């Protein structure tokens, strides 16, 4: 194989368009070099290779036009996310039009921010950089105002509303210098948005859609009223309707789902006649904790300070035991000691019981006065115990190394225990 043939093969390192334009000239130059130099020396080929290694990657990077392509992709993504935001705002508006106040104001401003973001995306696609900068700044200001009015905004919306315009602004100013840093900043923003949004969406999806069941009632009768809930998804937000067995339906507003905590506010679903004062649970603020078995239980506090229990059981899980694998994890002596004592128990139908937790031959046991039955407490981890032979778990609340209360969900409702001694 002669030197020119080798060089022609090496030319494949360059982008095809560059080869087509300058390949012939480069071969001519190489031929001249071969004529004037000794091609059999190592130094000659070292210089040839070094020249290719130094120039080909740069030309390939330029050929892919990284900055322009990334900007175009970012603009398309912006348009799509903004359209999603507008759709969500319209959806929220139709759901909340009966309720005036700052929630509606937040929807209007959020919609405006999305509209401006859409305009910015289109302006970037049309290469109207000045228009894109102005609409991005306006969108960012509008979003900040929305966030101040409506602080319970989801993380995904916050990322789209704030990080995306900031990233695009950086890229638009940076790309004046034709720097790949501009493209890198957009890529970083897009990747971080997706990286943070995907777990958020996955977590949101952890709240199963469909018909939920549950109980509500005052604290001394936590399962007095059976309820059903319809959990649906519109755009990127959850929508939940609460249907009591009798009485008015409630809509769950300002839903916040973070880790194992579900928070929301209850609002009457029907429009009230002018002058009519809403009663019941209207305006109550609720915080529920996800239990190991997958159900949620917690408290609602009304505008008048009245507190009531609320439990929500996801569809397909008739009771907590369905999703729990029975374990018998070892306990330390300190863990056992922290639980030993007597607990006053409120049963699902309002009955009362006394549960005595004690140690026998190093094994933790519980005795129910109501059922006159003694059995082991099988440790399931994270403070949760399954009474031997039962199909539910109870979770103890430990304060200062000592259990103060427990809660559990049986097939017939919530049981709660408070330490008496």
């Amino acid at each position: 194989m002669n030197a020119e043939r080798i060089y022609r093969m090496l030319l494949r390192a360059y982008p095809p368009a560059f080869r087509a334009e300058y390949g012939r000239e480069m071969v001519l130059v190489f031929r001249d070099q071969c004529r004037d130099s000794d091609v059999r020396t190592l130094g000659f080929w070292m210089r040839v290779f070094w020249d290719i290694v130094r120039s080909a990657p740069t030309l390939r990077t330029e050929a892919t036009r990284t900055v322009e392509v990334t900007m175009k992709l970012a603009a398309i993504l912006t348009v799509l996310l903004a359209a999603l935001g507008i759709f969500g705002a319209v959806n929220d508006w139709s759901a909340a039009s009966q309720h005036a106040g700052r929630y509606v104001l937040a929807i209007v401003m959020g919609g405006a921010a999305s509209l401006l973001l859409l305009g910015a995306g289109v302006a970037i696609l049309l290469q109207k950089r000045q228009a894109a900068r102005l609409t991005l700044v306006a969108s960012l200001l509008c979003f900040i105002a929305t966030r101040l009015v409506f602080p319970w905004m989801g993380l995904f919306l916050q990322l789209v509303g704030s990080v995306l315009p900031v990233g695009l602004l950086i890229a638009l100013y940076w790309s004046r210098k034709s720097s790949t840093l501009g493209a890198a900043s957009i890529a970083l923003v897009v990747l971080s948005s997706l990286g943070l949004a995907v777990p958020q969406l996955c977590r949101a999806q952890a709240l199963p859609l469909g018909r939920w069941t549950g109980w509500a009632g005052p604290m001394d009768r936590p399962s007095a009223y059976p309820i059903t809930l319809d959990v649906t998804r519109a755009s990127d937000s959850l929508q939940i309707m609460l249907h009591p067995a009798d009485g008015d339906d409630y809509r769950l507003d300002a839903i916040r789902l973070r880790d194992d905590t579900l928070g929301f506010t209850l609002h009457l679903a029907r429009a009230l006649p002018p002058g009519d004062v809403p009663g019941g649970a209207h305006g109550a603020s609720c915080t529920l904790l996800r239990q190991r078995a997958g159900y949620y239980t917690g408290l609602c506090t009304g505008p008048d300070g009245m507190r009531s229990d609320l439990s929500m059981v996801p569809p397909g899980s008739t009771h907590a035991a369905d999703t729990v694998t029975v374990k018998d994890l070892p306990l330390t002596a300190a863990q056992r000691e922290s639980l030993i004592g007597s607990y006053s128990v409120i049963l699902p139908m309002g009955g009362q019981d006394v549960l005595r937790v004690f140690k026998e031959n190093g094994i933790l046991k519980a005795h129910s006065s109501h059922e006159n039955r003694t059995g082991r407490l099988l440790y399931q981890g994270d403070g949760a115990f399954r009474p031997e032979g039962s199909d539910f778990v109870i979770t103890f609340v430990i304060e200062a190394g000592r259990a103060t209360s427990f809660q559990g969900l049986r097939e017939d409702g919530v049981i709660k225990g408070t330490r008496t001694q």
Partner: protein
Amino acid sequence: MSRNPQKQPFPESFLPLPPPTFHILLALADGELHGYAIMKGVTARSEGTVRLGPGTLYGALKRLLEDGLVEEAGERADPKQSNERRRYYRLTSLGRSVARAEAERLDALVRAARRKKLLGVRPA
């Protein structure tokens, strides 16, 4: 981002030039040259300290053409080399202005170095 050839940009906006680019502009300041002649001119002027390979040379020429500093001057054979037809390049008026601006920039630096006695003084 390629510069718009319709609007004549300021020569200073191209500065500082990478050394190979400045050497190419210097080589073309004498007149139209083909690729190999540019390479030989650069090597001779730099006394062998700057050696442009074909990839570096044509990569730089591509950018100079895009920026409007250099233009093609047709194809013809060079009787000194071979009968193959070669593409010739020449400076544009912008390219000449940019080369002059870079030379002035370097000259100012050299004068500053002289004032600081970093040049023209032999170490004792």
